[in-house]
C-alpha cells in the first residue's frame, strides 16, 4: 500500500516535468544562463557572451528601433511606430510631472530610460524561446540599487541634512516620532530590495507558470485545458509586463519626490 502511494507520487512529479512523453524540461530551465557559443555546460566568465548579453543587447536595439528609426522620418500625421514612440514619451513625461512636480522634470531622461529598458526587456522576454533578462535578480537589483543610491545621494546634495527630515515625521505626536523614525528607516532601506524583487519575482513567476502548464500539455487528457490556460496566462503576462514596468517607473518617481521634498 505504501509502495503504491510512492509510485503515484513519483509519476505525478514526472508528469509535471514532462518525463512521460518526449517533452522533458523543468519549469525553471528557461532561466538558465548559457553561453551563446560552445557547449551548454561551459563555464561562464564575466566576459562570456551569454543569452543574457544577447537579450539585453536586443532590448537596447528594440528601443533604438522604436525611438530613433520610427521618428527619423517623422510627419505631421504619425505612422504607427511614431505614434507609439510619442505616446510612450508623453505618458512618462506626464507621470514624472504629476508625481514629482516641475522640478522633477530635470530627471525625466533617466526615468524614461528606465521605463523603456524594462518594458522592452519584458516584452522581448514574452517571445517564445526568448530569455527574460528582467526575471533575474542580478539585472533588476542593479536597476533598483541604482535608483536607491541616485535618490539618496540626490536627497543629501539638494537638501543637506534636511533630507533626514524624511524620517522625522513632524506631523506625529512627539512621543511617537522616535518609533516612527525607526519604522521609516527600515522601510527606506527595504525599498531597493522590494523594488528589484517585485520586478524579478513577477517576471519569473509568470514565465514559470506558463512552463508548468506547457508540461501538462503533454498529457492527452488535460491537453486542451492546459493549452487554453497557456493562452490565457500569456494574455495576462502581456498585461503584467507593462504594469510591472509602469510600477517600477512610478515608484522611482515616488522615491525621487521624497528626495526633492523630504519634509513630511
Amino acid at each position: 500500500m505504501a509502495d503504491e502511494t510512492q509510485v503515484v507520487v513519483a509519476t505525478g512529479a514526472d508528469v509535471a516535468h514532462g518525463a512521460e512523453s518526449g517533452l522533458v524540461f523543468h519549469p525553471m530551465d528557461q532561466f538558465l544562463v548559457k553561453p551563446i557559443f560552445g557547449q551548454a555546460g561551459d563555464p561562464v566568465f564575466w566576459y562570456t557572451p551569454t543569452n543574457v548579453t544577447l537579450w539585453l543587447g536586443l532590448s537596447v536595439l528594440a528601443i533604438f528601433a522604436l525611438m530613433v528609426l520610427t521618428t527619423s522620418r517623422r510627419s505631421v500625421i504619425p505612422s504607427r511606430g511614431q505614434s507609439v514612440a510619442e505616446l510612450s514619451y508623453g505618458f512618462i513625461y506626464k507621470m514624472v510631472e504629476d508625481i514629482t512636480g516641475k522640478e522633477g522634470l530635470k530627471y525625466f531622461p533617466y526615468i524614461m530610460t528606465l521605463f523603456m529598458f524594462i518594458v522592452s526587456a519584458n516584452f522581448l522576454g514574452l517571445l517564445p524561446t526568448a530569455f527574460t533578462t528582467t526575471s533575474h535578480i542580478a539585472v533588476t537589483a542593479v536597476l533598483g540599487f541604482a535608483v536607491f543610491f541616485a535618490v539618496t545621494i540626490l536627497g543629501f546634495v539638494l537638501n543637506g541634512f534636511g533630507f533626514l527630515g524624511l524620517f522625522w515625521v513632524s506631523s506625529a505626536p512627539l512621543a511617537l516620532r522616535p518609533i516612527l523614525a525607526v519604522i521609516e528607516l527600515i522601510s527606506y532601506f527595504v525599498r531597493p530590495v522590494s523594488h528589484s524583487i517585485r520586478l524579478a519575482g513577477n517576471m519569473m513567476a509568470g514565465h514559470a507558470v506558463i512552463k508548468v502548464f506547457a508540461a501538462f500539455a503533454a498529457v492527452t487528457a488535460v491537453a486542451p485545458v492546459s493549452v487554453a490556460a497557456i493562452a490565457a496566462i500569456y494574455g495576462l503576462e502581456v498585461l503584467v509586463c507593462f504594469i510591472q514596468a509602469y510600477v517600477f517607473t512610478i515608484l522611482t518617481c515616488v522615491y525621487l519626490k521624497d528626495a526633492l521634498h523630504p519634509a513630511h
Partner: protein
Amino acid sequence: MEGELAQMGQFIGAGLTAFGMGGAAIGVGNVAGNYLAGALRNPSAAAGQTATLFIGIAFAEALGIFSFLVALLLMFAV
C-alpha cells in the same frame, strides 16, 4: 535520515509560503475594490488616482513577493 528530514522541512516550508500569496491577494483585492468603490461614487476624480492605485497595489504585492522570496531561499539557498 536527518538530511531527508531537513529536506522534508524545506519542502513543507516552501509550500507554506503559498499562504503569503493569499495574503497578498487579499491586500491587492482590498486596494482595487476600494478604488473601484470610490471611483463609482465619484467618477470624475477616478482618473487622477490611478497612479495611487498602482502604488498601493505594488506595495501590497511586494509582501506577497517576499513570501515567494522566502520559498526561493528555502529551496535553493538553505
